[in-house]
C-alpha cells in the first residue's frame, strides 16, 4: 500500500478513527489516573506487583515497567513511604500512602468528580 494511502486511512477515514488513534486518546485520558489509583489503593500497604494485579482486576491496566518507576517517583516526592519486607522468600518493597499523598489523593479525587459532573452536563446538552 502506498504511504499516502496509509496516511489517508490514518487521518481521514472519516467514519471511524482507527485503533491506534483510539488507543492514543485513551492513553492521554488515563494518564494521571494511575497516580490517583495508586495513592488511593496504597492506603493499605502493598508491594508493586500485587498493586498491579489488584488494579488489573479493576480494569485499570498499567505495565510493570511503568508502575515500578512511578512508585519510586511518588516516594521521592514524599507521597508514598516504603519499607523492604525480607521476611518472605523474595524481598519485596512495600509502599504506603503518606499523609501528603493522602491529601493529594483527596484533591485529585475531588477534581476527578468535578470533571465527571461537568462532562455529564455537557453530554446532556446543557450549554452554559
Amino acid at each position, binding site marked *: 500500500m502506498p504511504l499516502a494511502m496509509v496516511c489517508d486511512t490514518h487521518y481521514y477515514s472519516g467514519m471511524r478513527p482507527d485503533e491506534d488513534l483510539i488507543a492514543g486518546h485513551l492513553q492521554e485520558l488515563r494518564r494521571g489516573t494511575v497516580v490517583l489509583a495508586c495513592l488511593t489503593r496504597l492506603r493499605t500497604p502493598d508491594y*508493586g506487583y500485587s498493586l498491579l494485579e489488584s488494579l488489573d482486576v479493576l480494569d485499570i491496566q498499567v505495565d510493570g*515497567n511503568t508502575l515500578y518507576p512511578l512508585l*519510586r517517583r511518588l516516594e521521592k516526592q514524599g507521597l508514598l513511604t516504603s519499607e523492604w519486607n525480607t521476611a518472605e522468600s523474595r524481598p519485596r*518493597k512495600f509502599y504506603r500512602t503518606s499523609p501528603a499523598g493522602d491529601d493529594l489523593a483527596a484533591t485529585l479525587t475531588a477534581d476527578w468528580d468535578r470533571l465527571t459532573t461537568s462532562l455529564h452536563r455537557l453530554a446532556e446538552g446543557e450549554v452554559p
Partner: protein
Amino acid sequence: MTTLTDRYVWAAVRTVPEPQRSDLEPEIRELIEETVQARRVSGEEPVAAERAALVQLGDPERLAADYADRPLTLIGPRYYLEWLRLLKTLLAVVVPIVTVVVFLAQFLSRGDPGAAIGSAVATALGVTVHLGFWTTLVFVLLERAGTADTGIQWSPEGLPALPDHSRHARLPEFVASLVFLAALAAAIVWQHVSSVVRGPDGRAIALLDPALWAFWLPWFLVLLLAEAAFAAWVYLRDWSWAAAAMNLVLNLAFAVPAVLLWSGGRLLNPDFVAAVGWDPAVATGGGWTVASIVTGAVVLVAAWDVVDGFLRARRASLPATRQPVLMGH
C-alpha cells in the same frame, strides 16, 4: 534466577551513577521476579517465562531512564524552539560575516580569487559545523541539567512582520539588481581596458576576445541595460505574467549566445588563454571539462531565474482571499 536476569539488571543499573545502583538493583530484581512468577503461575516453563518477562519489561536502559527520570530525547520540547531559533540566528549572522571576511583577507593578501573562494567556502562549512555542534551541545547539557532557564524569553514584540507586498519591500532587491548589473557591465569594460593579466610588453591582455566588440559585447551591454530597465519595471509594477515572460526573453537573449560563444571557444581571448597557460576545454580529474561545468552552471542559473519569475508571477496573481493574513495590505 539465571545469568539472563543478572545481565538485564546489570544493563539497567550501569546507566545510573554508582551510588544509586545498590538502591535500584533490588527494585528491578523484584520487578523481574514478580513478572516471571506471574507467568509461571499461568503455566509457562521457567526458562521461557524468564525470557518472556524480560521481553515484556523492554529495553533495560529505557527502564533505568524511567527510574532516574532521565530524558530520552537529545533536546526535548522545553528547549527545542529556543535551540532552533538560536541556531538559525547564529548561522544567519556568523556564517556570512566570517565567509566574507575570510574571502577578503585571502583575496587581498594573495590576490588569487580561486584560492580565496576555496578557503572562504571551507571556512563557511567549518563554522557551520562548529556552530551546530556547540550550540546543540549546550542545549543537550541544559536538557540534562534540568531546571536552568536559558534566559531567552518569547515575547509578542518579537513576532515577525506580516509579508509586505508594497513597493517599499521590493526596494532592496531592486537596488541589489542594479548594483549587480552595473558591476557586470563595469567588469566587461574593465577586462578590456585593464585586465589582471599583462603581456610581455606590459599591455593588458583582455579576458574576452576583442573581436567580440564587433557585435556580441555591445549586445550584452545593451542587454544589461535592458535588464536594469526590467528590474525597474518589476520594482514599480510587481511581478506579473507579462513580467515573467519578459524575464524569459531576457534570459534567453543572454544565455543562448553566451553558451554558444563559450562552448564554441569564441568567448575567451586566445592570447589570454596562452598567457595564463590554462585551457578550460581540457578535462579535469572527474572527466568534466571546466568549459562544460560553466555551461551547465549558466543554463541552470538562467533556468532557475525563469522558473522563479513565473513562481513570483503566480504568487502575485493569487486572489487575496486565499491568504486571509494578508488582507488589508
